[in-house]
Protein backbone atom coordinates (compact mmCIF):
# COMPACT_ATOMS: atom_id res chain seq x y z
CA UNK A 1 0.00 0.00 0.00
CA UNK A 2 2.98 2.28 0.11
CA UNK A 3 3.41 4.54 -2.81
CA UNK A 4 6.31 6.51 -4.04
CA UNK A 5 4.76 9.78 -3.19
CA UNK A 6 3.78 12.50 -4.35
CA UNK A 7 4.44 16.03 -5.23
CA UNK A 8 4.35 16.96 -1.56
CA UNK A 9 7.60 15.18 -0.96
CA UNK A 10 9.39 17.25 -3.54
CA UNK A 11 7.93 20.50 -2.28
CA UNK A 12 10.13 22.09 0.39
CA UNK A 13 9.00 24.38 3.07
CA UNK A 14 7.41 27.59 3.74
CA UNK A 15 7.92 31.24 3.86
CA UNK A 16 8.92 33.11 6.89
CA UNK A 17 12.61 32.84 7.26
CA UNK A 18 13.28 30.81 4.20
CA UNK A 19 13.02 32.82 1.04
CA UNK A 20 13.57 31.40 -2.38
CA UNK A 21 16.48 31.67 -4.73
CA UNK A 22 16.03 33.34 -8.06
CA UNK A 23 15.37 30.58 -10.44
CA UNK A 24 16.43 31.53 -13.89
CA UNK A 25 19.27 30.05 -15.85
CA UNK A 26 20.06 27.09 -13.61
CA UNK A 27 20.66 24.70 -16.46
CA UNK A 28 22.92 27.10 -18.25
CA UNK A 29 25.00 27.49 -15.13
CA UNK A 30 25.63 23.78 -14.85
CA UNK A 31 27.94 23.71 -17.83
CA UNK A 32 30.02 26.67 -16.71
CA UNK A 33 30.08 25.19 -13.21
CA UNK A 34 31.74 22.10 -14.58
CA UNK A 35 34.45 24.03 -16.37
CA UNK A 36 35.07 26.05 -13.24
CA UNK A 37 35.39 22.85 -11.28
CA UNK A 38 38.05 21.55 -13.62
CA UNK A 39 39.88 24.84 -13.42
CA UNK A 40 39.76 24.78 -9.65
CA UNK A 41 41.08 21.25 -9.49
CA UNK A 42 43.75 22.20 -11.97
CA UNK A 43 44.84 24.88 -9.56
CA UNK A 44 46.08 22.19 -7.23
CA UNK A 45 48.22 20.74 -9.97
CA UNK A 46 49.55 24.18 -10.80
CA UNK A 47 50.57 24.95 -7.24
CA UNK A 48 52.28 21.61 -6.97
CA UNK A 49 54.21 22.37 -10.11
CA UNK A 50 55.29 25.73 -8.75
CA UNK A 51 56.33 24.11 -5.50
CA UNK A 52 58.40 21.51 -7.27
CA UNK A 53 60.07 24.04 -9.53
CA UNK A 54 60.61 26.63 -6.81
CA UNK A 55 64.40 26.38 -6.77
CA UNK A 56 64.38 27.01 -10.49
CA UNK A 57 61.76 29.76 -10.34
CA UNK A 58 63.43 31.66 -7.53
CA UNK A 59 65.35 34.56 -9.01
CA UNK A 60 67.98 34.68 -6.28
CA UNK A 61 69.63 32.42 -3.72
CA UNK A 62 67.27 32.58 -0.72
CA UNK A 63 70.10 32.19 1.76
CA UNK A 64 72.42 34.90 0.47
CA UNK A 65 72.01 38.60 0.94
CA UNK A 66 71.56 40.04 -2.52
CA UNK A 67 70.27 43.52 -1.96
CA UNK A 68 69.89 46.42 0.40
CA UNK A 69 68.50 45.25 3.74
CA UNK A 70 64.84 45.96 4.42
CA UNK A 71 63.98 47.20 0.95
CA UNK A 72 60.25 47.61 0.44
CA UNK A 73 58.43 45.59 -2.22
CA UNK A 74 59.24 46.78 -5.70
CA UNK A 75 62.44 48.61 -4.79
CA UNK A 76 65.60 47.55 -6.52
CA UNK A 77 63.90 44.95 -8.67
CA UNK A 78 62.89 42.85 -5.71
CA UNK A 79 59.24 42.07 -6.22
CA UNK A 80 58.52 41.45 -2.59
CA UNK A 81 61.36 43.37 -1.05
CA UNK A 82 64.24 42.15 1.06
CA UNK A 83 64.53 41.15 4.69
CA UNK A 84 66.73 42.57 7.41
CA UNK A 85 69.84 40.92 6.02
CA UNK A 86 69.08 41.75 2.44
CA UNK A 87 67.83 38.39 1.27
CA UNK A 88 65.25 38.35 -1.50
CA UNK A 89 61.84 37.80 0.02
CA UNK A 90 60.36 36.43 -3.18
CA UNK A 91 62.92 33.66 -3.34
CA UNK A 92 62.54 32.90 0.31
CA UNK A 93 58.80 32.78 0.04
CA UNK A 94 58.95 30.51 -2.98
CA UNK A 95 61.17 28.10 -1.15
CA UNK A 96 58.96 28.35 1.90
CA UNK A 97 55.97 27.56 -0.28
CA UNK A 98 57.79 24.54 -1.59
CA UNK A 99 58.45 23.21 1.86
CA UNK A 100 54.95 23.90 3.16
CA UNK A 101 53.08 22.59 0.17
CA UNK A 102 55.05 19.44 -0.34
CA UNK A 103 55.05 18.65 3.36
CA UNK A 104 51.29 19.20 3.46
CA UNK A 105 50.79 16.92 0.50
CA UNK A 106 52.89 14.33 2.25
CA UNK A 107 50.85 14.60 5.45
CA UNK A 108 47.61 14.24 3.55
CA UNK A 109 48.97 11.31 1.56
CA UNK A 110 50.15 9.51 4.67
CA UNK A 111 46.90 10.31 6.40
CA UNK A 112 44.91 8.87 3.51
CA UNK A 113 47.03 5.77 3.27
CA UNK A 114 47.29 4.94 6.93
CA UNK A 115 43.90 6.24 7.92
CA UNK A 116 42.27 4.80 4.84
CA UNK A 117 43.69 1.37 5.43
CA UNK A 118 42.70 1.41 9.08
CA UNK A 119 39.24 2.61 8.18
CA UNK A 120 38.80 0.05 5.42
CA UNK A 121 39.94 -2.75 7.66
CA UNK A 122 37.72 -1.65 10.51
CA UNK A 123 34.68 -1.15 8.30
CA UNK A 124 35.10 -4.30 6.27
CA UNK A 125 36.14 -6.68 9.01
CA UNK A 126 33.87 -5.43 11.73
CA UNK A 127 33.75 -7.21 15.06
CA UNK A 128 36.49 -6.77 17.57
CA UNK A 129 38.95 -5.46 15.02
CA UNK A 130 36.57 -2.63 14.30
CA UNK A 131 36.03 -2.00 18.00
CA UNK A 132 39.71 -1.90 18.81
CA UNK A 133 40.73 0.26 15.87
CA UNK A 134 37.94 2.69 16.53
CA UNK A 135 38.80 3.04 20.20
CA UNK A 136 42.31 4.02 19.25
CA UNK A 137 41.04 6.38 16.59
CA UNK A 138 38.54 7.95 18.95
CA UNK A 139 41.28 8.48 21.47
CA UNK A 140 43.31 10.51 19.04
CA UNK A 141 40.26 12.37 17.84
CA UNK A 142 39.23 13.34 21.33
CA UNK A 143 42.49 15.10 21.98
CA UNK A 144 43.21 18.54 20.56
CA UNK A 145 45.26 17.67 17.52
CA UNK A 146 47.49 20.68 17.27
CA UNK A 147 48.35 20.65 20.95
CA UNK A 148 49.36 17.03 20.80
CA UNK A 149 51.45 17.75 17.72
CA UNK A 150 53.22 20.48 19.63
CA UNK A 151 53.92 18.13 22.50
CA UNK A 152 55.24 15.47 20.17
CA UNK A 153 57.56 17.82 18.36
CA UNK A 154 58.73 19.30 21.59
CA UNK A 155 59.58 15.83 22.77
CA UNK A 156 61.29 14.70 19.61
CA UNK A 157 63.09 17.92 19.01
CA UNK A 158 62.40 20.59 16.41
CA UNK A 159 62.94 19.91 12.75
CA UNK A 160 60.95 19.53 9.61
CA UNK A 161 60.79 15.78 9.68
CA UNK A 162 59.67 15.65 13.30
CA UNK A 163 57.01 18.22 12.62
CA UNK A 164 55.83 16.26 9.63
CA UNK A 165 55.77 13.13 11.75
CA UNK A 166 53.88 14.79 14.58
CA UNK A 167 51.19 16.22 12.33
CA UNK A 168 50.78 12.95 10.44
CA UNK A 169 50.39 11.21 13.76
CA UNK A 170 47.45 13.36 14.78
CA UNK A 171 45.97 13.61 11.32
CA UNK A 172 45.39 10.03 10.21
CA UNK A 173 42.60 9.24 12.72
CA UNK A 174 40.41 11.76 10.97
CA UNK A 175 40.64 9.84 7.72
CA UNK A 176 40.24 6.51 9.43
CA UNK A 177 36.95 7.59 10.87
CA UNK A 178 35.65 8.96 7.60
CA UNK A 179 36.68 5.96 5.53
CA UNK A 180 35.24 3.58 8.08
CA UNK A 181 31.99 5.48 8.05
CA UNK A 182 31.79 5.31 4.29
CA UNK A 183 32.65 1.63 4.20
CA UNK A 184 30.07 0.84 6.83
CA UNK A 185 27.42 2.85 5.02
CA UNK A 186 28.19 1.13 1.76
CA UNK A 187 28.40 -2.30 3.29
CA UNK A 188 24.93 -1.88 4.71
CA UNK A 189 23.46 -1.19 1.31
CA UNK A 190 21.69 -4.01 -0.46
CA UNK A 191 24.10 -4.09 -3.36
CA UNK A 192 26.76 -5.63 -1.17
CA UNK A 193 24.35 -8.29 0.03
CA UNK A 194 23.23 -8.86 -3.52
CA UNK A 195 26.84 -9.33 -4.55
CA UNK A 196 27.33 -11.80 -1.76
CA UNK A 197 24.28 -13.71 -2.91
CA UNK A 198 25.61 -13.63 -6.44
CA UNK A 199 28.54 -15.56 -5.12
CA UNK A 200 31.22 -12.90 -4.78
CA UNK A 201 33.77 -13.61 -2.09
CA UNK A 202 35.06 -11.18 0.53
CA UNK A 203 38.02 -9.87 -1.42
CA UNK A 204 36.04 -9.43 -4.57
CA UNK A 205 33.35 -7.57 -2.68
CA UNK A 206 35.87 -5.30 -1.02
CA UNK A 207 37.62 -4.44 -4.24
CA UNK A 208 34.78 -4.27 -6.72
CA UNK A 209 31.76 -3.38 -4.62
CA UNK A 210 33.15 -1.28 -1.77
CA UNK A 211 36.38 0.41 -2.65
CA UNK A 212 35.19 2.25 -5.78
CA UNK A 213 32.52 3.84 -3.65
CA UNK A 214 34.87 4.96 -0.94
CA UNK A 215 37.68 6.39 -3.02
CA UNK A 216 35.85 9.47 -4.31
CA UNK A 217 34.81 10.77 -0.92
CA UNK A 218 38.20 10.00 0.58
CA UNK A 219 39.91 11.94 -2.17
CA UNK A 220 37.49 14.82 -1.73
CA UNK A 221 38.13 14.95 1.99
CA UNK A 222 41.85 14.87 1.41
CA UNK A 223 41.86 17.69 -1.09
CA UNK A 224 39.70 19.87 1.10
CA UNK A 225 42.06 19.17 3.94
CA UNK A 226 45.27 20.39 2.34
CA UNK A 227 44.54 23.96 3.38
CA UNK A 228 44.15 22.94 7.01
CA UNK A 229 47.43 21.10 7.04
CA UNK A 230 49.21 24.07 5.50
CA UNK A 231 47.93 26.30 8.26
CA UNK A 232 48.80 23.86 11.01
CA UNK A 233 52.29 23.47 9.64
CA UNK A 234 52.65 27.23 9.49
CA UNK A 235 51.54 27.60 13.09
CA UNK A 236 53.99 25.01 14.30
CA UNK A 237 56.70 26.63 12.28
CA UNK A 238 55.80 29.97 13.84
CA UNK A 239 56.20 28.51 17.30
CA UNK A 240 59.70 27.47 16.44
CA UNK A 241 59.09 23.81 15.87
CA UNK A 242 60.08 23.62 12.24
CA UNK A 243 63.40 23.94 10.51
CA UNK A 244 66.07 26.00 12.15
CA UNK A 245 67.39 29.24 10.72
CA UNK A 246 68.39 30.22 8.13
CA UNK A 247 66.18 27.83 6.17
CA UNK A 248 63.21 29.69 4.67
CA UNK A 249 59.96 28.66 6.27
CA UNK A 250 56.72 30.55 6.08
CA UNK A 251 55.82 30.60 9.77
CA UNK A 252 59.33 30.79 11.17
CA UNK A 253 60.30 33.67 8.94
CA UNK A 254 57.44 35.66 10.34
CA UNK A 255 58.19 34.75 13.93
CA UNK A 256 61.81 35.69 13.68
CA UNK A 257 61.12 39.09 12.21
CA UNK A 258 58.18 40.18 14.35
CA UNK A 259 60.18 43.08 15.66
CA UNK A 260 60.17 44.62 12.19
CA UNK A 261 56.41 44.72 12.06
CA UNK A 262 55.84 48.39 12.73
CA UNK A 263 58.64 49.72 10.57
CA UNK A 264 59.20 47.29 7.74
CA UNK A 265 55.87 45.53 7.83
CA UNK A 266 56.40 43.52 4.68
CA UNK A 267 59.17 41.44 6.16
CA UNK A 268 56.98 39.46 8.56
CA UNK A 269 53.80 39.80 6.48
CA UNK A 270 55.02 38.42 3.14
CA UNK A 271 55.69 34.85 4.36
CA UNK A 272 52.26 34.90 5.98
CA UNK A 273 50.73 35.93 2.68
CA UNK A 274 52.49 32.98 1.11
CA UNK A 275 50.77 30.68 3.56
CA UNK A 276 47.48 32.42 2.88
CA UNK A 277 47.90 31.87 -0.85
CA UNK A 278 48.55 28.18 -0.34
CA UNK A 279 45.59 27.83 1.97
CA UNK A 280 43.27 29.57 -0.48
CA UNK A 281 44.58 27.43 -3.31
CA UNK A 282 43.90 24.37 -1.21
CA UNK A 283 40.35 25.48 -0.43
CA UNK A 284 39.44 26.43 -3.95
CA UNK A 285 41.10 23.38 -5.43
CA UNK A 286 39.43 21.14 -2.90
CA UNK A 287 36.05 22.62 -3.78
CA UNK A 288 36.74 21.93 -7.42
CA UNK A 289 37.64 18.34 -6.74
CA UNK A 290 34.50 17.96 -4.68
CA UNK A 291 32.37 19.40 -7.44
CA UNK A 292 33.90 16.97 -9.89
CA UNK A 293 33.74 13.84 -7.84
CA UNK A 294 30.45 14.27 -6.03
CA UNK A 295 27.61 13.49 -8.31
CA UNK A 296 24.10 13.76 -7.03
CA UNK A 297 23.93 10.56 -5.03
Amino acid at each position, binding site marked *: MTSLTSSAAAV*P*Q*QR*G*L*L*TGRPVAGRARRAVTDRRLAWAAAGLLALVTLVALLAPVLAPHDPLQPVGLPSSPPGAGGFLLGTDTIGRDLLSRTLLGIRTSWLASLAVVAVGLLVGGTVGLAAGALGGWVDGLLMRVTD*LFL*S*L*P*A*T*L*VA*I*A*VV*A*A*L*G*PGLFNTFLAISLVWWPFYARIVRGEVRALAARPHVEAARLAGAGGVRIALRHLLPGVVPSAVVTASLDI*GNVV*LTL*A*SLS*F*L*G*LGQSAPAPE*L*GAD*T*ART*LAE*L*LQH*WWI*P*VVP*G*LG*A*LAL*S*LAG*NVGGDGVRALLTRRR
Partner: protein
Amino acid sequence: MTTYVLRRLGALAALLVALSGLLFVLRRSSSGDPVRALVGANASQEAIARARADLGLDQPLTVQYGHYLAGLVRGDLGTSYRTRRPVGEDIAAFGPPTLELVAAAFVVALVLALLFAVSSILRWPGAVVFRAVLQVGAAAPTFLLAIGGIVLFSAVLGWLPSGGRGTPGDPVDQALHLLLPALALGIAPALALGRVLRSSLLTTLAADHVRTARAKGLGEAATLRRHVLRNSAGPALSMAGLQLGFMLAGVLVVENVFTWNGLGSYLASSIPVDDYPAIAGVTLVLGATYVVVNAVVDVLQALADPRTSA
Protein backbone atom coordinates in the same frame (compact mmCIF):
# COMPACT_ATOMS: atom_id res chain seq x y z
CA MET B 1 19.77 9.99 30.60
CA THR B 2 21.76 9.39 33.76
CA THR B 3 23.30 6.26 32.26
CA TYR B 4 24.41 8.36 29.34
CA VAL B 5 26.03 10.93 31.59
CA LEU B 6 27.75 8.25 33.60
CA ARG B 7 29.06 6.58 30.48
CA ARG B 8 30.32 9.89 29.22
CA LEU B 9 32.08 10.62 32.49
CA GLY B 10 33.72 7.22 32.33
CA ALA B 11 34.96 7.92 28.84
CA LEU B 12 36.22 11.29 30.04
CA ALA B 13 38.28 9.75 32.82
CA ALA B 14 39.73 7.19 30.41
CA LEU B 15 40.71 9.95 28.02
CA LEU B 16 42.47 11.95 30.67
CA VAL B 17 44.42 8.91 31.73
CA ALA B 18 45.34 8.22 28.13
CA LEU B 19 46.48 11.80 27.63
CA SER B 20 48.67 11.63 30.65
CA GLY B 21 50.06 8.32 29.45
CA LEU B 22 50.86 9.82 26.09
CA LEU B 23 52.68 12.71 27.65
CA PHE B 24 54.53 10.40 29.96
CA VAL B 25 55.73 8.32 27.03
CA LEU B 26 56.77 11.41 25.18
CA ARG B 27 58.72 12.66 28.12
CA ARG B 28 60.83 9.59 28.05
CA SER B 29 61.79 10.28 24.48
CA SER B 30 62.32 13.97 24.93
CA SER B 31 65.78 15.19 24.35
CA GLY B 32 65.94 17.35 27.42
CA ASP B 33 67.71 15.62 30.25
CA PRO B 34 66.08 16.34 33.59
CA VAL B 35 69.09 15.19 35.50
CA ARG B 36 71.43 17.56 33.76
CA ALA B 37 68.94 20.33 34.15
CA LEU B 38 68.86 19.72 37.87
CA VAL B 39 72.55 19.36 38.65
CA GLY B 40 74.19 21.21 35.82
CA ALA B 41 76.62 20.10 33.17
CA ASN B 42 79.68 19.61 35.33
CA ALA B 43 78.29 17.50 38.13
CA SER B 44 80.09 14.50 39.51
CA GLN B 45 78.91 10.97 39.02
CA GLU B 46 77.56 10.70 42.57
CA ALA B 47 75.67 13.93 42.21
CA ILE B 48 74.14 12.61 39.03
CA ALA B 49 73.28 9.28 40.63
CA ARG B 50 71.75 11.03 43.61
CA ALA B 51 69.76 13.29 41.34
CA ARG B 52 68.52 10.31 39.42
CA ALA B 53 67.35 8.65 42.60
CA ASP B 54 65.72 11.89 43.74
CA LEU B 55 63.83 12.20 40.52
CA GLY B 56 62.86 8.56 40.74
CA LEU B 57 64.43 7.76 37.41
CA ASP B 58 65.98 4.53 38.65
CA GLN B 59 62.59 2.89 39.19
CA PRO B 60 60.89 0.67 36.59
CA LEU B 61 58.73 2.50 34.06
CA THR B 62 55.36 1.38 35.35
CA VAL B 63 56.25 2.60 38.83
CA GLN B 64 57.39 5.90 37.42
CA TYR B 65 54.09 6.20 35.58
CA GLY B 66 52.23 5.40 38.75
CA HIS B 67 54.07 8.15 40.59
CA TYR B 68 53.41 10.49 37.72
CA LEU B 69 49.70 9.75 37.71
CA ALA B 70 49.45 10.07 41.46
CA GLY B 71 51.21 13.37 41.22
CA LEU B 72 48.81 14.57 38.58
CA VAL B 73 45.84 13.78 40.73
CA ARG B 74 47.43 15.82 43.52
CA GLY B 75 48.04 18.65 41.08
CA ASP B 76 51.76 18.07 40.88
CA LEU B 77 52.85 18.63 37.31
CA GLY B 78 56.54 18.54 37.94
CA THR B 79 59.03 21.33 38.16
CA SER B 80 59.98 23.56 35.31
CA TYR B 81 63.62 23.33 34.30
CA ARG B 82 63.60 26.94 33.38
CA THR B 83 61.74 28.75 36.12
CA ARG B 84 62.58 26.20 38.84
CA ARG B 85 59.06 26.56 40.11
CA PRO B 86 56.34 23.91 40.17
CA VAL B 87 54.72 23.87 36.79
CA GLY B 88 51.34 23.94 38.46
CA GLU B 89 52.14 27.31 39.98
CA ASP B 90 53.34 28.66 36.69
CA ILE B 91 50.18 27.54 34.97
CA ALA B 92 48.03 29.06 37.68
CA ALA B 93 49.83 32.32 37.15
CA PHE B 94 49.77 32.33 33.37
CA GLY B 95 46.46 30.62 32.94
CA PRO B 96 43.86 33.36 33.56
CA PRO B 97 44.99 35.65 30.72
CA THR B 98 44.75 32.74 28.31
CA LEU B 99 41.34 31.87 29.62
CA GLU B 100 40.23 35.44 29.13
CA LEU B 101 41.51 35.50 25.59
CA VAL B 102 39.96 32.19 24.59
CA ALA B 103 36.63 33.15 26.11
CA ALA B 104 36.65 36.47 24.29
CA ALA B 105 37.58 34.77 21.02
CA PHE B 106 34.73 32.35 21.53
CA VAL B 107 32.26 35.16 21.97
CA VAL B 108 33.60 36.85 18.84
CA ALA B 109 33.32 33.60 16.91
CA LEU B 110 29.75 33.06 18.09
CA VAL B 111 28.66 36.56 17.16
CA LEU B 112 30.28 36.40 13.73
CA ALA B 113 28.88 32.93 13.13
CA LEU B 114 25.35 34.01 13.96
CA LEU B 115 25.76 37.02 11.73
CA PHE B 116 27.01 34.84 8.94
CA ALA B 117 24.23 32.30 9.25
CA VAL B 118 21.36 34.73 9.64
CA SER B 119 22.54 37.18 6.98
CA SER B 120 22.98 34.33 4.56
CA ILE B 121 19.56 32.84 5.20
CA LEU B 122 17.69 36.13 5.20
CA ARG B 123 19.69 37.43 2.25
CA TRP B 124 20.64 40.66 3.86
CA PRO B 125 22.44 43.11 1.59
CA GLY B 126 26.17 42.78 2.01
CA ALA B 127 25.88 39.16 3.11
CA VAL B 128 27.91 37.99 0.16
CA VAL B 129 30.70 40.44 0.87
CA PHE B 130 30.70 39.52 4.53
CA ARG B 131 30.93 35.87 3.61
CA ALA B 132 33.85 36.47 1.25
CA VAL B 133 35.73 38.47 3.87
CA LEU B 134 35.16 35.74 6.43
CA GLN B 135 36.32 33.07 4.01
CA VAL B 136 39.57 34.85 3.21
CA GLY B 137 40.09 35.58 6.88
CA ALA B 138 39.60 31.97 7.80
CA ALA B 139 42.03 30.84 5.13
CA ALA B 140 44.78 33.00 6.59
CA PRO B 141 47.19 31.64 9.18
CA THR B 142 46.39 32.97 12.63
CA PHE B 143 49.67 34.78 12.93
CA LEU B 144 49.02 36.62 9.69
CA LEU B 145 45.64 37.76 10.93
CA ALA B 146 47.30 38.91 14.11
CA ILE B 147 50.08 40.88 12.50
CA GLY B 148 47.82 42.12 9.76
CA GLY B 149 45.43 43.38 12.39
CA ILE B 150 48.22 45.16 14.16
CA VAL B 151 49.44 46.80 10.99
CA LEU B 152 45.97 47.91 9.98
CA PHE B 153 44.25 48.84 13.20
CA SER B 154 47.22 49.91 15.20
CA ALA B 155 49.93 51.25 12.94
CA VAL B 156 47.80 52.66 10.14
CA LEU B 157 44.50 53.55 11.79
CA GLY B 158 45.65 53.90 15.35
CA TRP B 159 42.36 52.66 16.72
CA LEU B 160 43.61 49.76 18.77
CA PRO B 161 46.73 49.02 20.80
CA SER B 162 49.30 46.70 19.36
CA GLY B 163 50.04 44.48 22.30
CA GLY B 164 49.93 43.85 25.97
CA ARG B 165 46.94 43.51 28.21
CA GLY B 166 46.31 47.11 29.09
CA THR B 167 46.15 48.99 32.34
CA PRO B 168 44.89 46.84 35.21
CA GLY B 169 41.83 48.35 36.79
CA ASP B 170 40.74 50.06 33.58
CA PRO B 171 38.17 47.74 32.00
CA VAL B 172 37.70 49.83 28.88
CA ASP B 173 41.39 49.87 28.16
CA GLN B 174 41.61 46.16 28.83
CA ALA B 175 38.70 45.51 26.52
CA LEU B 176 40.40 47.46 23.76
CA HIS B 177 43.52 45.43 24.23
CA LEU B 178 41.46 42.26 24.11
CA LEU B 179 39.62 43.06 20.92
CA LEU B 180 42.29 42.56 18.27
CA PRO B 181 43.71 39.29 19.63
CA ALA B 182 40.22 37.91 20.13
CA LEU B 183 39.35 38.80 16.58
CA ALA B 184 42.48 37.20 15.17
CA LEU B 185 41.80 34.05 17.12
CA GLY B 186 38.09 33.91 16.47
CA ILE B 187 37.73 34.41 12.72
CA ALA B 188 38.51 30.91 11.53
CA PRO B 189 36.25 29.26 14.12
CA ALA B 190 33.60 31.81 13.21
CA LEU B 191 33.51 30.60 9.64
CA ALA B 192 33.40 26.92 10.51
CA LEU B 193 30.71 27.51 13.10
CA GLY B 194 28.78 29.82 10.82
CA ARG B 195 28.71 27.27 8.04
CA VAL B 196 27.42 24.53 10.28
CA LEU B 197 24.87 26.84 11.85
CA ARG B 198 23.60 27.97 8.50
CA SER B 199 23.35 24.47 7.10
CA SER B 200 21.67 23.21 10.25
CA LEU B 201 19.15 26.04 10.29
CA LEU B 202 18.33 25.55 6.63
CA THR B 203 17.77 21.86 7.10
CA THR B 204 15.53 22.39 10.08
CA LEU B 205 13.51 25.13 8.42
CA ALA B 206 12.76 22.73 5.61
CA ALA B 207 11.75 19.94 7.93
CA ASP B 208 8.30 18.41 8.02
CA HIS B 209 7.70 19.22 11.65
CA VAL B 210 8.12 22.90 10.94
CA ARG B 211 5.46 22.56 8.29
CA THR B 212 3.23 21.01 10.92
CA ALA B 213 3.90 23.90 13.26
CA ARG B 214 2.86 26.36 10.60
CA ALA B 215 -0.17 24.26 9.79
CA LYS B 216 -1.22 24.68 13.39
CA GLY B 217 -1.23 28.39 12.85
CA LEU B 218 1.85 29.08 14.94
CA GLY B 219 3.46 32.46 14.36
CA GLU B 220 7.01 32.80 13.02
CA ALA B 221 8.52 33.72 16.35
CA ALA B 222 6.94 30.80 18.17
CA THR B 223 7.89 28.41 15.39
CA LEU B 224 11.49 29.56 15.54
CA ARG B 225 11.72 29.42 19.27
CA ARG B 226 10.06 26.09 19.85
CA HIS B 227 10.66 24.09 16.73
CA VAL B 228 13.76 25.37 14.98
CA LEU B 229 16.41 26.54 17.40
CA ARG B 230 16.59 23.54 19.65
CA ASN B 231 16.60 21.13 16.73
CA SER B 232 19.42 22.98 14.96
CA ALA B 233 21.61 23.15 18.01
CA GLY B 234 23.17 19.70 17.76
CA PRO B 235 25.65 20.03 14.90
CA ALA B 236 26.55 23.57 15.94
CA LEU B 237 27.36 22.42 19.45
CA SER B 238 29.63 19.67 18.12
CA MET B 239 31.45 22.09 15.87
CA ALA B 240 31.85 24.55 18.72
CA GLY B 241 33.56 21.87 20.79
CA LEU B 242 35.82 20.98 17.91
CA GLN B 243 36.77 24.58 17.22
CA LEU B 244 37.74 25.04 20.83
CA GLY B 245 40.54 22.59 20.19
CA PHE B 246 41.87 24.70 17.36
CA MET B 247 41.53 27.82 19.45
CA LEU B 248 43.54 26.32 22.24
CA ALA B 249 46.37 25.85 19.78
CA GLY B 250 45.86 29.16 18.04
CA VAL B 251 45.99 31.04 21.32
CA LEU B 252 49.63 30.11 21.62
CA VAL B 253 50.39 31.90 18.39
CA VAL B 254 48.27 34.92 19.16
CA GLU B 255 49.75 35.44 22.59
CA ASN B 256 53.15 35.46 21.00
CA VAL B 257 52.29 38.22 18.58
CA PHE B 258 50.46 40.42 21.05
CA THR B 259 52.86 39.84 23.94
CA TRP B 260 49.96 38.57 25.92
CA ASN B 261 51.27 37.10 29.13
CA GLY B 262 49.44 33.84 29.13
CA LEU B 263 50.24 30.19 28.64
CA GLY B 264 51.29 30.83 25.08
CA SER B 265 54.14 33.04 26.12
CA TYR B 266 55.03 30.57 28.83
CA LEU B 267 55.13 27.79 26.28
CA ALA B 268 57.06 29.87 23.79
CA SER B 269 59.75 30.37 26.39
CA SER B 270 59.80 26.70 27.27
CA ILE B 271 60.23 25.31 23.80
CA PRO B 272 63.65 26.67 22.90
CA VAL B 273 65.14 25.34 26.14
CA ASP B 274 63.48 21.95 26.00
CA ASP B 275 61.67 22.50 29.27
CA TYR B 276 59.64 19.36 28.91
CA PRO B 277 57.76 19.41 32.22
CA ALA B 278 56.47 22.85 31.35
CA ILE B 279 55.50 21.83 27.83
CA ALA B 280 53.82 18.68 29.03
CA GLY B 281 52.07 20.55 31.80
CA VAL B 282 50.59 23.13 29.49
CA THR B 283 49.56 20.45 27.01
CA LEU B 284 47.95 18.43 29.75
CA VAL B 285 45.99 21.32 31.18
CA LEU B 286 44.81 22.61 27.83
CA GLY B 287 44.12 19.10 26.61
CA ALA B 288 42.11 18.29 29.69
CA THR B 289 40.12 21.48 29.24
CA TYR B 290 39.32 20.47 25.70
CA VAL B 291 38.26 16.99 26.70
CA VAL B 292 36.06 18.24 29.53
CA VAL B 293 34.39 20.87 27.37
CA ASN B 294 33.58 18.28 24.72
CA ALA B 295 32.11 15.98 27.31
CA VAL B 296 29.90 18.85 28.45
CA VAL B 297 28.93 19.49 24.82
CA ASP B 298 27.94 15.86 24.42
CA VAL B 299 25.75 16.01 27.48
CA LEU B 300 24.16 19.25 26.29
CA GLN B 301 23.42 17.61 22.97
CA ALA B 302 21.80 14.68 24.67
CA LEU B 303 19.67 17.11 26.64
CA ALA B 304 18.65 18.92 23.49
CA ASP B 305 17.82 15.78 21.54
CA PRO B 306 16.25 12.97 23.54
CA ARG B 307 16.91 10.51 20.78
CA THR B 308 20.64 10.47 21.43
CA SER B 309 20.39 9.05 24.89
CA ALA B 310 17.72 6.59 23.88
